[in-house]
């Protein structure tokens, strides 16, 4: 008797239940996507091959998935840490571009001892990402400017800066294309000998572990939640409200900057006009699905990496259009998001 049922918000959804809900959402999304793809002309048996076997069960596919997940983990964390203090960082891409620019500057300039090249690229890209978000942060804290608007617009400014460089000073002298020259060997993350996977993996793992520890096991996470949920009460109780916001928002920018660095130093080895596109939406989706919990960010980022990998395989081998790929990815994500509803509410029926 469904018409006599109530929606009741669950107090604390259990782990098993949430797991089932998400798995169900994923399965549903995949099924719908499969139907769409078959409709678009992909043979049904090839779907299993490409979607499941190629992305998860072959060594190449897995390597590509993990490689794709590296920047996704970083932008997901970037979005998540800002979300914890209710700062809506819609400028993840802008900070990522700035990080990529900083890394490229060191990457193509040469000079300095080779051993210090990658570490200095890491530091500078993080610093530039943080600097780029510092502008909206100051505007918000001093003048109450909405960060939704300012971070978003600064993202476009960052992209224009990249274009300015690529069509100007940094244009590849060899080809004349609007891409930079390739990085020196010392400015690239070394290959790990497994697909395209590179040593940036270690950097991402260390960073993710640090963020996880900071948010889950130090005061920082406690402050962040208090500030995010009720800043007035946090302030009245003597918590460092402004300090917490500043710290986590700068961290958010720094993580985005690092993501830019891992892309140019890890896979592209040069700066071009497309390294940063699409990461904003991925970042928000990952952080939202993971409910801003660092450990879950890593899990969701890997899943999303797999979806991207499968998409590019389908595109290359079956001539599926880009629009179709985006549709499929959107279908999967929205099903998972809807699954969250079922883990949050229960149906209560006559006893």
């Amino acid at each position, binding site marked *: 008797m469904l*018409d006599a049922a*109530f929606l009741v918000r669950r107090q604390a959804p259990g782990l098993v239940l949430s797991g089932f809900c998400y798995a169900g959402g994923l399965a549903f999304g995949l099924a719908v996507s499969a139907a769409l793809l078959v409709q678009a002309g992909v043979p049904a048996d090839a779907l299993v091959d490409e979607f499941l076997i190629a992305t998860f069960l072959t060594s190449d596919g897995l390597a590509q998935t993990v490689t794709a997940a590296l920047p996704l983990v970083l932008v997901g964390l970037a979005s998540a840490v800002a979300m914890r203090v209710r700062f809506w960082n819609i400028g993840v891409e802008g900070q990522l571009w700035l990080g990529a620019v900083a890394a490229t500057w060191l990457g193509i300039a040469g000079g300095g001892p080779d051993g210090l090249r990658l570490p200095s690229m890491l530091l500078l890209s993080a610093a530039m990402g943080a600097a780029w978000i510092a502008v909206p942060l100051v505007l918000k804290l001093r003048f109450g400017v909405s960060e939704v608007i300012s971070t978003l617009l600064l993202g476009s400014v960052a992209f224009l800066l990249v274009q300015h460089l690529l069509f100007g000073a940094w244009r590849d002298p060899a080809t004349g294309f609007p891409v930079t020259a390739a990085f020196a060997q010392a400015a690239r993350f070394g290959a790990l000998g497994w697909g395209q996977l590179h040593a940036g993996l270690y950097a991402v793992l260390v960073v993710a572990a640090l963020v996880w520890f900071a948010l889950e096991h130090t005061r920082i996470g*406690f402050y962040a939640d*208090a500030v995010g949920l*009720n800043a007035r009460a946090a302030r009245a*109780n*003597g918590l460092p409200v402004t300090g917490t916001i500043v710290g986590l928002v700068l961290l958010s920018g720094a993580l985005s900057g690092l993501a830019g660095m891992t892309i140019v130093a890890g896979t592209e080895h040069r700066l071009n006009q497309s390294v940063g596109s699409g990461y904003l939406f991925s970042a928000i989706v990952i952080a939202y699905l993971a409910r801003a919990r660092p450990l879950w960010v890593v899990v969701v980022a890997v899943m999303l990496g797999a979806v991207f990998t499968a998409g590019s395989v389908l595109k290359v081998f079956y001539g599926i259009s880009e629009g179709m790929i985006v549709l499929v990815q959107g279908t999967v994500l929205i099903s998972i998001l809807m699954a969250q509803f079922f883990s949050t509410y229960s149906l209560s029926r006559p*006893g």
Partner: protein
Amino acid sequence: MMRPAGAPGGREATSPGVPLALDLSGVGKSFDGRPALSDASFALAWGEVHAIVGENGAGKSTLMNVAAGVYAADEGVQTIDGEPISPRSPMEATAAGLGMVHQHFRLVDSFTVAENVLLSLGRRGAVRTVAQASAAIAAKAKEIGLPVDPARIVADLSTAERQRAEIVRVLLLGARILVLDEPTAVLTEEEAKALLSFVRRLAGQGHAVVLITHKFREVAGFCDRVTIMRHGRTVLAGAAVAELDEGEVARLMVGETLTTGGRPASTPGDVRLSVSDLTLSAGPHAQGLASIGFDLRAGEVLGIAGVGGNGQEELVSCLISLSRPQQGTMLLAGRDVSAASPRERRRAGLRVIPSDRFDSGLIREFAIAGNLALSTVSEGAFGGPLFLDRARMRKAAATAIDAFDIRGATPARQTGLLSGGNAQKVLLARELDTGMTVLVAHSPSRGLDMKATQFVRSAIRRAVEGGAACLLISEDLQEVLSLSHRVAVMNRGAIAGCRGIDEVTPEWIGALLAGHA
């Protein structure tokens, strides 16, 4: 979910033959396996004002939420005007004739009153435009004698005006049974009187009114019958108010007789808090403060009486440094803290019980353990800067829950789910810690039942007898008079006068409250 009753009105009605306005019986409801109601019942006749009283967490709000379709009961039967019903939503209950005005209002702040009414009327009935809604509101307001301006934006309304808008909205939706959940807790004395006389008029016109309250005076003065709840059960069903006395009600509510302790038996010592010339300019929704000054001594309670909205909120906000006054100095134990942050003032021993617990006191969504630790985590109480010992935090919370007898609490439970009195105990448990030297308590027993009120007052008494100083700001004159050594009266952002308790007379207070002295 409630099963419709097989036969309407199984129990005796007040006048035979006429169906009851509302009849609930055998209602059970659990939240996460904890029973909030078990076998609760309630019978309401047309034309009466029926009080529901009971201690915090007794299940009063829950029972009425079930009747109003907000929650689904696990078991029980319900009839409205003799018709079996199991409302699945507030809309359905209102359509059947029962409307509830909640403790926290449910209007859209950025809409006008008329737009709000239109929003809840939806596409039913004849009212389809804002103009029609305005006309309907004006007509209804006139009919029942309740002033409501349909064109005003809700955000600009005072609490009392919002409440009136809610009432008119619910009545316009077709409610003939009006349920008011602690309506007077947020009103000044004058406003409360006006509301209660309105409620009487409404009953006189044949409506039925349920009044959830903690104030015996309201029961005695304005209600026909009273139902008392305790631990999720109805312990006294619909007794005529005329035949009851306060002591008996209190005993039935809490199961024991209460002692009314007097003011703290301590003599004032050194000055602990000294405020002078505190001046704050008025904001769009805020009263300004005009050169407020007072000294508060150890072992002393300074009561500040006054009608709400005369600068009490702003004073507290300045004292805890959430607002910056334009002028004035503040000394804590002789040290100038005029420019100090909330944190520094806390370190200097200042503790606060704000009037709205979930505004600057507690975080609704936090676990109880988190709220109990809110001010001490940053002082290193649960591990150094690098590590936060959540296990230790939970253990400390369990101890505090025991010590303060916080009902319905576990360290991991969300604070917002506690009943009002128990949430207040969480606040007390945190604020009355060992470092406290000055306590600012603003309406500390607002919305609390008699027992919880006694608890709060004796906690303040003990703290003051132990050498603390207390600034007691309250709109409840009785509370101020029974606890304070000195009484000041606040009016329009200024202290209108201050006297020792022995020299306080009702005439003096009355004159200052009214603003001429």
